[in-house]
């Protein structure tokens, strides 16, 4: 990962042994002092919640944090870029997006009137796929799908890393999924209500989400029915900046069934897809996406996985996460995405203290 300071990765025992003249010493504090300072200058977690920085500029001021005037020629090129993006691409994309969303709502409502039958399912899939494709065009999305033979099957659960709200559209461009999510108000709510008539998406009321057992039960029922479309879940729970994969919440892995992992990696050269929800609201985010050059990404379908007899949900979640990180070229972090907003638990600090004192006892400095 791109860090700014050189970190000494020697383990604590070795480092402290080097410092020792005798047993417990004033010097032991050095190790912790330095580690503390390194953490203050740069920590692994916080940098994941801001956009990745590019080595060479892609003519979007938003990706160059240290933007400053370099040359006249570059500025002229940049101005032309702005004109193209805002006056030409944006209206085009906006029109397409409107067409896409309208057809989705109208199409889904119309199909929803039909009685349940295979014709209905076929038409519903057609509507969803077509509208997804229109929406992807509206974002100028260029998506490369790899290993299509591993595409999620009916009755399975599709699991992917989360970078932005458009992840769902990227995936539905290539297949039909049953979405899982909270019921929203406004335009999103209208879309949700329309689509659920045509296809069995799983929308939860806000109060239901709090009840984990209810959620698990409903999802289990859905998965047990082999004729239903695969569910799409993002287990990180929040948007990460696409350079790493954070902890997967184990709830998705307790439902049972086959897990189809999918790795999504965006190419930052053409546009930054990461949604920093603490900095931008959804409207400014969509505006930024629509005024980027394009959304280019790679999607890898990984071979299906099942929970083994001897592993629990957490270990299974970690196994799936490793596979996704490995395929997408992302680093793995054991931290919880919830750290975007919350503090670290005290148990972690106690761990480190325990390790240190265990070391002292071993060295025999205590009787």
């Amino acid at each position, binding site marked *: 990962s791109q*860090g*700014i*300071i*050189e970190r000494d990765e020697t383990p604590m025992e070795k480092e402290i042994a080097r*410092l020792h003249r*005798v*047993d*417990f*010493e*004033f*010097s*032991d*504090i*050095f190790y*912790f*002092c*330095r*580690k*503390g*300072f*390194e*953490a*203050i*200058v*740069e*920590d*692994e*977690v*916080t940098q994941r919640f801001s956009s990745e920085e590019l*080595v*060479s*500029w892609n003519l979007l*001021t938003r990706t160059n*944090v*240290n*933007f*400053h*005037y*370099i*040359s006249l*020629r570059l*500025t002229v090129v940049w101005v032309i870029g702005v004109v193209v993006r805002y006056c030409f691409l944006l209206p085009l994309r906006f029109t397409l997006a409107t067409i896409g969303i309208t057809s989705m709502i109208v199409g889904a409502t119309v199909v929803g009137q039909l009685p349940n039958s295979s014709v209905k399912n076929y038409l519903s899939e057609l509507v969803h796929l077509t509208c997804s494709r229109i929406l992807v065009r509206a974002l100028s999305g260029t998506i490369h799908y790899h290993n299509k033979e591993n595409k999620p099957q009916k009755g399975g659960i599709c699991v992917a890393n989360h970078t932005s709200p458009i992840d769902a559209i990227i995936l539905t461009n290539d297949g039909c999924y049953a979405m899982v999510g909270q019921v929203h108000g406004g335009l999103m709510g209208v879309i949700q209500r329309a689509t659920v008539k045509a296809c069995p998406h799983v929308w939860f009321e806000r109060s239901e989400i709090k009840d984990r057992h209810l959620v698990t039960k409903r999802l289990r029922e859905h998965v047990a029915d082999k004729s239903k479309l695969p569910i799409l879940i993002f287990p990180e729970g929040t948007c990460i900046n696409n350079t790493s994969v954070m902890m997967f919440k184990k709830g998705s892995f307790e439902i049972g069934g086959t897990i189809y992992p999918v790795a999504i990696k965006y190419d930052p050269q053409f546009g930054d897809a990461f949604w920093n929800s603490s900095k931008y609201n959804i409207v400014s985010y969509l505006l930024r996406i629509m005024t980027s050059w394009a959304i280019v990404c790679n999607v890898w379908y990984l071979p299906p996985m099942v929970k083994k007899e001897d592993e629990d949900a957490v270990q299974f979640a970690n196994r799936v996460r490793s596979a996704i990180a490995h395929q997408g070229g992302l680093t793995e972090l054991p*931290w919880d995405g919830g*750290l975007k907003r919350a*503090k*670290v638990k005290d148990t*972690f*600090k*106690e*761990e*480190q*203290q*325990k390790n*240190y*004192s265990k070391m*002292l*006892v071993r060295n025999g*400095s*205590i*009787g």
Partner: protein
Amino acid sequence: VGPQGSSPPVPSLFPPLTVTSEQIEHLHRRFKQLSRDQLTIRKENFDSIPDLEFNPIRGKIVHAFFDKRNLRQESDGLVDEINFEDFLTIMSYFRPIEMNMDEEQLDRFRKEKLKFLFHMYDSDHDGKITVQEYRNVVEELLSGNPHLEKESARSIADGAMMEAASICAGQMGPDQVYEGITFEDFLKMWQGIDIETKMHVRFLNMETIAHCY
């Protein structure tokens, strides 16, 4: 003409910092991140660093940032908030040795780092590390272990203080009481031990951003 990025004010520090402007920009960005775009940082802002939570002496490290003695201020005690210049001042205690330093500079360098450490131990700012203060540090480092009793932590601290006393005040008479380790004694303890390489944070060489001309 493109918009100007906000460049941080480069303070004048004594002794002068030989870090590149890029490193200062990085630190400034980090400062803004920690302060949530305010001009100053308070103690609470350090709570947002998950990696720091691991550290058993976290309290002392954060405390060190607000210690007036470290900020080279004349008075004593703690400040409530620090600005970017103060932040850089504290960071300067951790810069690595440069090749072109002469004897005098190296010696001063070393003293600065040891002084910083001394302030960490000496929590009541009286210029001496007493047994009680030392015990505090040991307890903090070991407090997470439930099997270790307070007595053991105490005996470790006492043992180390006796060792220190023998080095510093070997010539003490039998009826003299050892009050505490002064800074001079502290320096004596570290003679011959290379601490400069243990107490630094080294910046990686930044790759140059491709410009087009």
